[in-house]
């Protein structure tokens, strides 16, 4: 199977700090890939480089077989590669519906058609009852959900979620996990950035672990959780024997 999204030798420096060091991996169509790593491992930088918010220093990004390295974020969204943000970014003074309409306008030139699509998506993510509430008045969990809805309304082929679950309570996490599963069933390829292992392990088909900018593991969740390098990265060397 050819990969929908391929990262090859991606490297990014900030001054003397090496945020991503020669990172390579692929994501198959319809897969849920977990991107794990302790805080500061370079996950968000990698996301920014893949989705056109930062130019990589070296390396290539290929999407659907096309080299898209250096394309702008808005162009990549049109190509079908869309992301959400670690710190939630909704349009605060617009209603939930207007937020999602703006996403839907990417594929629907007419506002009336975009509204219909936006209402469908709000229904899908369970925010239909909150359509007319200003985004700034929604709860944190609802705003995270709204951001996913806005991204979904662009009809992406691949959706990159940057810590979509952090800051949610256990019930909200369960709902978010169910939503991600439904999205994949709908044919969307998903990359999840998380530093909470418990969320990713049962959900992901495959996991890539970053540490200090390098990919130190790329395997199934079960294999990764037994990997000494991963345990060392997360817990420290003294835990390897007991694992």
């Amino acid at each position: 199977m050819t990969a929908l999204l391929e990262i090859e030798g991606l490297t990014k420096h900030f001054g003397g700090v090496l945020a991503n060091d020669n990172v390579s991996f692929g994501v198959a169509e319809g897969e849920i890939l977990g991107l794990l790593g302790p805080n500061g491992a370079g996950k968000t930088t990698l996301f920014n480089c893949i989705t056109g918010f930062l130019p990589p220093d070296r390396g290539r990004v290929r999407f659907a077989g096309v080299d898209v390295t250096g394309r702008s974020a808005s162009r990549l969204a049109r190509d079908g590669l869309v992301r959400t943000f670690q710190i939630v970014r909704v349009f605060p003074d617009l209603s939930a519906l207007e937020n999602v309409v703006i996403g839907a306008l990417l594929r629907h030139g007419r506002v009336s058609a975009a509204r219909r699509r936006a209402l469908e998506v709000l229904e899908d993510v369970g925010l239909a009852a909150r359509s007319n509430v200003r985004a700034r008045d929604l709860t944190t969990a609802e705003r995270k959900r709204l951001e996913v809805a806005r991204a979904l309304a662009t009809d992406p082929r691949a959706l990159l979620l940057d810590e979509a679950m952090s800051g949610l309570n256990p019930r909200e996490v369960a709902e978010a996990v169910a939503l991600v599963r439904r999205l994949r069933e709908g044919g969307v390829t998903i990359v999840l950035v998380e530093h909470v292992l418990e969320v990713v392990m049962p959900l992901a088909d495959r996991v890539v672990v970053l540490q200090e900018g390098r990919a130190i593991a790329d395997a199934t969740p079960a294999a990764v959780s037994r990997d000494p390098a991963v345990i060392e990265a997360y817990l420290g060397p003294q835990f390897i024997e007991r694992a």
Partner: protein
Amino acid sequence: MPRPGLPVIALVAAALVYPLVFGSPAAINVGVLILLFAALGTAWNLLGGYAGQISFGHAVFFGIGAYTSTVLLKEAGLSPWLGMLAGAALAALAAVLLGVPTFRLAGHYFAIATIVIGEIAHTVVRNLDAIGGARGLFLPILPTSLVNYQFHNSRLPYYGIAFGLYALALAATLMVERRRIGYYLRAIREDPTASRSVGVSVLQYKLAAAALSAALTAICGTFYAQYVLFIDSDSVFPLSLSILIALTAILGGAGRAYGPLLGAGVLVPLSEITRIAFGGTGRGADLVIYGALIVLISVAQPGGIAALGDALRRRLPQPA
């Protein structure tokens, strides 16, 4: 979204009744200025209110409109109506050329850049002897006619044209508001990074808003030249004019279609009153009042006069 029916009908009725009730030339003059500044504020609102790019340099586009039609009239005998279109096109071009570098700047830095550009344009025009320099330009007096865009017996035709200018700017705003571009401009104002993430070409839409805003502002500049029949850099390029244009929209309600009309309805009479009260020495007084108003709005009601209704509704008990 409410249909515009009622406000539009009320607007047309008020505009028709005003000259019947207040018939004096001075009152008609105030009416002309209210409509002119409502049109200018509405044009500014497309870029400043909807797209959130606060410009304190719109006098540049006003000046381009006034000077383009006037120079073409004086030098080539071109009808001011055609000169108006040339000025609008030139202003739109200038907006795009200035926008490409300045739209990289965010928030206050963009606003500061617009002040600098406005002051540069003001100084350059004052020193450009080929177009009158510091002495300014007198327009040739032509017989009263619509074709000549000059009316010497009554100010009513100017009042009618000013209403047309406002209607044009308002129609443009209502069209933008209901279309993809209107949603995208508000998205850009709210969060440009998030806008990019859902496929909005941020620069392209900012430039479109700037070009439309500049073209409408330039059309008002031509009107001013034909109305006053004398222009110089201090009357059509000053910073105080840029501030007044912005303030009209901000006071009335930035990002709201009818906000600038409300702002003009307050500011123009206020400016006339200070002019009468302080006479020739009152030149600074209006700036003091504008500054105080900006502070008052940002502290008390950032949404402007048009937002007062919303705030009031929120305070009243909600119907079940």
